[in-house]
């Protein structure tokens, strides 16, 4: 069974090779290569997950012949494998669900490029999840940025190019700060491998030397990753990038790309700086405050929005706020809630984007709410899926969002200093969520007489209906049988420390 130890490395390599091969293929062939790659990677990640669960601890895979302080390493535990598995599943479903839009939105000769970018994106996400080396993480952060930018502008109009430029500018500011922070950390500790850095940081803190440089480097890395994952107030690029790109890109960007950066931040907190040291620095309170503000202001902007795609995009700002609020609690429970919310938000947001496109398709491609009236009857699958996604976002029991809200509230109760603001904002934000999502659900189920728009049944688009059903099942599974997943997250976080 020890052969499974190679799987993380193999899955990253497969993505890179698939990208290279796809660049010489035609659109359809590249699409098939990409789907095959995603299926294989799902299987590999599932094997790794089962293996690490059985092993009960994480394992380190040495890249090349050089041992620990010099060489490059991959490290896989339960949490890493769970994330990789989840990322592959969500990406596969998002791509299948948005395929018909992709075929009509992208120029004929350029379709293969989309899949090349997707392969690269997956490789960088997996590398961010598995790597044990800070500089490798930086390089893959940049690869992630470049491929995400390509995904935004593959559907070319003025809006998407402008959105891509704005996305690039904010991302580059973020990665500049990340690079500077990790260079400083390298200077302080003399190591690039996460475990070695952690040992040196513990020594430095114990001796009480270099307090200010250490804090500055933590701040730079945290803020850099916050900018890249669109924490409020750095979210200005987000609505355009998610709102006007093709639907698969929007689903992948909102549910995977930003989560990759957040996962890297979790790794930095646990494996590079050390949870206690990170908690005792003041940065955690800043993350908490901005998380809370994001939860409120993201929802307020979403309420004002009159465009369904942009509304869902603004809702992402609020959900990212939830995740950072969990970080800000500074407790194990808060972290568990955040990681669970990463999964539940990824499953829900991609579902919402994919379902929204089905609704706009039966409304003459208009995205204004007034045109969407009654669209839930014209495309029943999309209507049902959108309703499930909305209920999950609001946090109704049986759906995934309920569990994350429950975990957040439990975490808040355990932290006396931050209990009151966290619970109040959680309540307010839930009401705001309910306002804009239920408004939309009521709108799409308001009957209209003699509409001029055609209806679609699931026979017209069998693949789309299957994808929506899979998303709904995934969402309900997370909501109904959440305990095994939460246990895995707890176990994975324990392996981190």
């Amino acid at each position, binding site marked *: 069974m020890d052969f499974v130890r190679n799987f993380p490395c193999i899955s990253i390599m497969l993505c890179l090779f698939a990208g290279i091969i796809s660049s010489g293929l035609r659109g359809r062939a590249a699409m098939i290569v990409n789907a095959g790659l995603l299926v294989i990677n799902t299987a590999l990640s599932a094997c790794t997950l089962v293996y690490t669960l059985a092993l009960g601890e994480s394992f380190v895979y040495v890249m090349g012949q050089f041992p620990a302080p010099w060489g490059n390493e991959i490290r896989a535990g339960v949490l890493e494998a769970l994330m990789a598995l989840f990322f592959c599943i969500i990406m596969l479903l998002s791509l299948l669900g948005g395929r018909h839009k992709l075929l009509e939105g992208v120029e004929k000769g350029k379709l293969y490029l989309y899949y090349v970018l997707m392969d690269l994106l997956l490789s960088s996400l997996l590398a961010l999840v598995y790597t044990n080396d800070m*500089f490798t993480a*930086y*390089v893959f952060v*940049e690869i992630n*940025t*470049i491929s995400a*930018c390509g995904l935004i*502008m593959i559907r*070319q*109009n*003025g*809006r998407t*190019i*402008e959105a*891509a*430029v*704005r996305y*690039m*500018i904010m991302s*580059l*500011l973020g990665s*500049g*700060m990340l*690079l*500077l922070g990790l*260079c400083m950390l*390298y*200077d302080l500790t003399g190591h*690039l491998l996460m475990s070695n850095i952690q040992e040196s940081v513990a020594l430095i803190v114990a001796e009480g030397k270099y307090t200010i440089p250490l804090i500055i480097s933590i701040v730079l890395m945290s803020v850099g990753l916050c900018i890249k994952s669109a924490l409020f107030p750095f979210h200005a690029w987000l609505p355009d990038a998610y709102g*006007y790109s093709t639907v698969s890109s929007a689903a992948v960007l909102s549910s995977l790309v930003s989560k990759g950066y957040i996962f890297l931040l979790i790794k930095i907190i646990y494996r590079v700086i050390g949870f206690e040291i990170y908690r005792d620095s003041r940065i955690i309170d800043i993350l908490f405050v901005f998380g809370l503000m994001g939860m409120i202001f993201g929802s307020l902007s979403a309420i004002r929005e009159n465009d369904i795609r942009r509304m869902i995009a603004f809702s992402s700002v609020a959900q990212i706020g939830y995740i950072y609020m969990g970080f800000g609690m500074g407790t194990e429970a808060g972290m568990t809630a955040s990681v669970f919310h990463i999964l539940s938000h990824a499953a829900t947001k991609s579902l919402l984007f994919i379902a929204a496109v089905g609704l706009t398709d039966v409304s003459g491609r208009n995205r204004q709410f007034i045109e969407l009236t009654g669209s839930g009857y014209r495309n029943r699958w999309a209507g049902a899926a959108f309703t499930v996604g909305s209920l999950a976002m609001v946090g109704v029991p049986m759906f995934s969002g309920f569990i994350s809200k429950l975990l957040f509230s439990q975490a808040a109760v355990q932290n006396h200093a931050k209990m009151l603001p966290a619970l109040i904002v959680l309540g307010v934000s839930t009401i705001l969520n309910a306002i804009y999502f239920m408004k939309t659900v009521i709108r799409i189920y308001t009957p209209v007489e003699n509409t001029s728009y055609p209806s679609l049944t699931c026979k017209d688009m069998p693949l789309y209906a299957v994808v929506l059903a899979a998303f709904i099942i995934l969402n309900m599974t997370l909501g109904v049988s959440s305990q095994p997943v939460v246990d895995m997250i707890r176990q994975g976080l324990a392996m981190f420390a």
Partner: protein
Amino acid sequence: MGTNLFINYGEAVAMILFGIGFGNLLLQPNLIKKIIGLNIMDTAIYLFLAEKGYIRGRVAPIVAGGVQSMEAYINPIPSGLVLTGIVVSVSVSALMLALTIRLYRRYHTLDLDEISKRLRKEGL
């Protein structure tokens, strides 16, 4: 503090340059100036790494003349990091320039705010 600053003037300059580049990338409305800011920012980090990696009186770790003492050479990793960083920054700059060309062909201006204004007018 003051003497440290004087001894480590290279790092201080790198930080100032980083600030200049960061400010330019964030605040300049002109896209080309933004890209210049990006390059200043990245180069400042390479200066910082190079400055940190160099120890006065030592040479690059290429064994010459049979000297194998560790005291004679510098650590090659910072230089390696600089090289990797340069590759990344070149590709990112190229991508930004390509995007700029696209925008310029469409709107005949390099001013990002102006482009946003026109997009709003188009109501796309």
